[in-house]
């Protein structure tokens, strides 16, 4: 018996992502053209993204409540689909420059994206686990894709070892939760006794597993090394995609399992505060651009966790819940756009073999390559949270959610961190505009596809910084989160 058409349509994005991934690998021996493969991969990513519109208009559960397609999962599908599309677009010239095989690369990106999609729509913990593994294993391979590079090897190895460790935590957590509640379906867990020690322990282990994926302190140690060693387009993917998907699952668990709320509030409070400080203080002393951006993404995970605290503090108040969730989603989108753009610039300025990643290599960029410097400055200002960028409104909504839930002190800590962050973002801008070029550094022309990525991300950053109405209206729609 085949499943109903509705169910198939609800997993259509994943099917398309995986289908095109397999197709790419099959066609590899026959297709000699790099551009042809890139085109095929772009088609896959684009079609998959388009297909995620269907669940938006026709929400519901599929496969006996294993997954749930609704506005929430639709949002994340669009987000990770867009990320994949832009990563593929930006990585085509990169792969050519580094002489790397394109087919597997694109296929792995698509598989990882499919995994993230599953993660975002999972309504059942084992399905979520499958999604997590799909995206993680593809990521491990992608991290080590530059085989000749020692750093890439280190990156892949670290990511793999620590990632497996975290996945084990996650799995053990699922087992304990199952032991406590007798089910792995989130919707049936609401009946469980929220005070049970086994349930709490299980949830704590799940939190540790996902905390690793989103690079929350103290589970963040892998981030700088992995981000630094991985090929930069892959770093862009890492910082935008898996993080968003892991946050999606956390949000799902949160708003469906009542036991999670009260218990996790303080855990999130401490995680958020710690993550912000570790990320920002770590970034202060970096001299490598990729490492600096890696630490900055730790800090941003901390900001998102502040919104999580606000969600956890809702105490059954739906208005607070939607405000918190909307803040998280808005921030994730703004952050994904900015990080994608920033890493794209970095990957192309790095030059062959990614040699030029030191902060000093950016000296005089404002004179040498005004467009690239202006774009990178825009991303940095958005990360810093200056108005007229999406990053500002993202931060604004998080502040609003936090204060709405009376988390004044956490908001103040976040404010302090924003100022610390300002220092290192501005430092890069200082270097680009206020120092003279070092001798022997040439202009690096940007291919058209890279310019397109920069245009899309820059436009998105400004557009969502000025006109958030549509997105916020969409994400704070009642019933948007989890069909309550």
């Amino acid at each position: 018996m085949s499943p109903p058409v509705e169910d198939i349509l609800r997993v259509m994005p994943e099917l398309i992502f995986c289908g095109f991934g397999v197709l790419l690998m099959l066609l590899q021996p026959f297709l000699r053209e790099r551009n042809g493969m890139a085109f095929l991969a772009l088609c896959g990513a684009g079609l998959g993204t388009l297909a995620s519109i269907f669940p938006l208009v026709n929400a519901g559960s599929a496969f006996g409540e294993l997954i749930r397609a609704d506005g929430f999962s639709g949002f994340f599908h669009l987000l990770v689909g867009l990320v994949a599309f832009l990563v593929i677009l930006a990585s085509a010239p990169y792969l050519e420059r580094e002489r790397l095989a394109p087919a597997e690369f694109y296929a792995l990106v698509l598989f990882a994206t499919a995994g993230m999609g599953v993660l975002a729509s999972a309504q059942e913990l084992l399905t979520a686990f499958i999604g997590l593994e799909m995206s993680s294993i593809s990521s491990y391979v992608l991290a080590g894709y530059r085989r000749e590079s020692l750093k890439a090897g280190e990156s892949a190895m670290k990511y793999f070892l620590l990632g497996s460790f975290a996945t084990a935590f996650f799995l053990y957590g699922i087992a304990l939760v199952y032991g406590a509640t007798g089910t792995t379906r989130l919707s049936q867990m609401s009946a469980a006794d929220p005070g049970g020690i086994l349930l709490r322990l299980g949830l704590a282990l799940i939190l540790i597993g996902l905390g690793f994926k989103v690079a929350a302190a103290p589970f963040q140690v892998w981030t700088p090394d992995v981000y630094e060693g991985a090929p930069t387009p892959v770093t862009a993917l890492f910082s935008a995609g898996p993080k968003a998907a892991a946050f999606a699952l956390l949000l799902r668990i949160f708003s469906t399992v009542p036991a999670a709320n009260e218990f996790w509030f303080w855990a999130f409070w401490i995680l958020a505060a710690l993550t912000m400080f570790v990320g920002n203080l770590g970034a202060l002393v970096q001299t490598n651009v990729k490492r600096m951006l890696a630490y900055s993404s730790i800090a941003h995970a901390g900001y998102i966790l502040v919104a999580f605290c606000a969600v956890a503090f809702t105490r059954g108040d739906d208005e607070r819940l939607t405000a918190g969730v909307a803040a998280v989603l808005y921030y994730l989108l703004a952050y994904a756009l900015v990080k994608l753009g920033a890493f794209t610039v970095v990957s192309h300025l790095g030059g062959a073999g990614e040699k030029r990643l030191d902060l000093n290599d950016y000296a005089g960029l404002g004179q040498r390559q005004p467009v690239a410097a202006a774009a990178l400055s825009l991303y940095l200002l958005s990360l810093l949270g200056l108005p007229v960028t999406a990053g500002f409104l993202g931060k604004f909504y998080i502040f609003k959610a936090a204060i709405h839930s009376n988390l004044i002190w956490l908001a103040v800590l976040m404010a302090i961190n924003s100022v610390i962050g300002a220092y290192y973002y501005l430092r890069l801008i200082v270097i680009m505009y206020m120092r003279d070029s070092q001798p022997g550094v040439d202009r690096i022309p940007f291919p058209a596809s890279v310019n397109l990525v920069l245009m899309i991300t820059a436009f998105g950053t400004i557009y969502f910084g000025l006109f958030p109405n549509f997105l916020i209206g969409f994400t704070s729609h009642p019933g948007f989160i989890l069909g309550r």
Partner: protein
Amino acid sequence: MTPATLHFVSGGHLLTVVIFFPALGALALLILRSEDHEWIRRVSFTVAAAEFVLSLLLIPGVPLGSGTYHLEEFHPWIASPPIQYHLGVDGISLFLVILTTFLTPISILASWTSIHARVKEFFVMLLLLEVGIVGVFLSLNLFLFFLFWEVMLIPMYFLIGIWGHERRIYAAVKFVLYTMAGSILMLVGILWLYNATGTFDLPTIQQMLQGGLLALSPRAETLLFLAFFVAFAIKVPLFPFHTWLPDAHVEAPTAGSVILAGVLLKMGTYGMIRFCLPLFPDASRRYAPAIAVLAIIGIIYGALVALVQPNLKKLVAYSSVSHLGFVVLGIFALQNISMQGAVFQMLAHGISTGALFLLVGMLYDRRHTFEIDDYGGLATPMPRLAAFFLFVALSSLGLPMLNGFVGEYLVLLGTYQVHWKWTAWAATGVILSACYLLWSYQRVFFGEVTNDKNRALADASARERWILASMAVVILWMGIGSPFFTRRFATSCQTVLDQMQRPWAYEAAAPRPTAAGPHASSSALGSSLERFGSR
């Protein structure tokens, strides 16, 4: 032109036009080729001059004797949380806008020959800076206000960091970090206020406070007051938050210093008048004595440091700390007269100190040094410049008939009604300002020319004479025709003070409505605070 015709001609969008016209100019500049320096300068000057004329149209838009907002624009912008694009102008913001639009073309003229590198970017930044500053003064929505407040940082940051002097990067980063540290806490405060009121609209919040619909607990009010006040105090800068100012002023290019001293600092004092006093009246009253003391410390400390400065530009920078102390004192004396004086002093200081920075910049263009010891006897080679310098210095030290006198006099007059000791201490600042300005003038311009390099310095060029003459005319006009200005903002000042009175707080001598009322805390400082409250 009557307000009605004005409204008709502009289609009801005059304020929007005034804010964003320079941005259009900046876009036009981007089209020009970077090598066309002459055209870039001409276009940006034309745009800035046209902007000045546009802003003059606001004067008939604000009728005499009216304390409310005019030429308001109100459009929904962000749906959730409800944020409106709400602009309006009253007597206080009117002249601050005009001050901005006046100083911008002046600084463009002043940078005509002194900026050689990246000319296009320089003027684009200058025009964008103007957008941000004018936007700050015209916003009536807290969110919009914050947005302009932050946006303005970036052009200023580049102006100092790219075209500044030796330690420019240090100064630029310090400037941005100080301001951000204050303003991000203000954002938390704004959101807290939103949480209590459900709106970001300033007039609406004021009405709620007036109508007693919103009662903040004393603790909440205090914290909110501090969140706003510290952001503004850093900007002013009030002692002890002033340490960024000497660096930023000295390292900035002349145009940057002019705008920085002329208008940016006023954003802080403007914020105090516009937000701190009407929104948090009880906390303002409670902290007014402490703030007044800080302001007096700033007046005297700034003057004393200026007295011993070997660096001419730093001397002018510290004189700003001193003069802005008068403004803060005038505001927190909570008297109509003193507040008028404060507003007038903001304008006067903008013109006089702007002119001083221009003159110092002209000296620097010739000799590339700010050290007073490198000069001496300059009156011989450059008599015209020396005459202008003397005129401006006299206005800055408060000579009657010139603009500096009016503001300081009104502030001291108003403060005297509250506390004569404050007036006495603050008045020493006036004496000290005469000391440091005249003494430095003497060392720079009088006596024999000791340094041979100074013997052949060129006197003020035609362009420089135009700049200085226009400044001198305004200085004189403000000194003689001060009622033109005070008449227009007197009522607005009174409105701010009226807004500080809550209906149920009027009978200061009567028993309190409830024990938990904000006035209940009048214990130790009670009697002196009572006098603030009841006016």
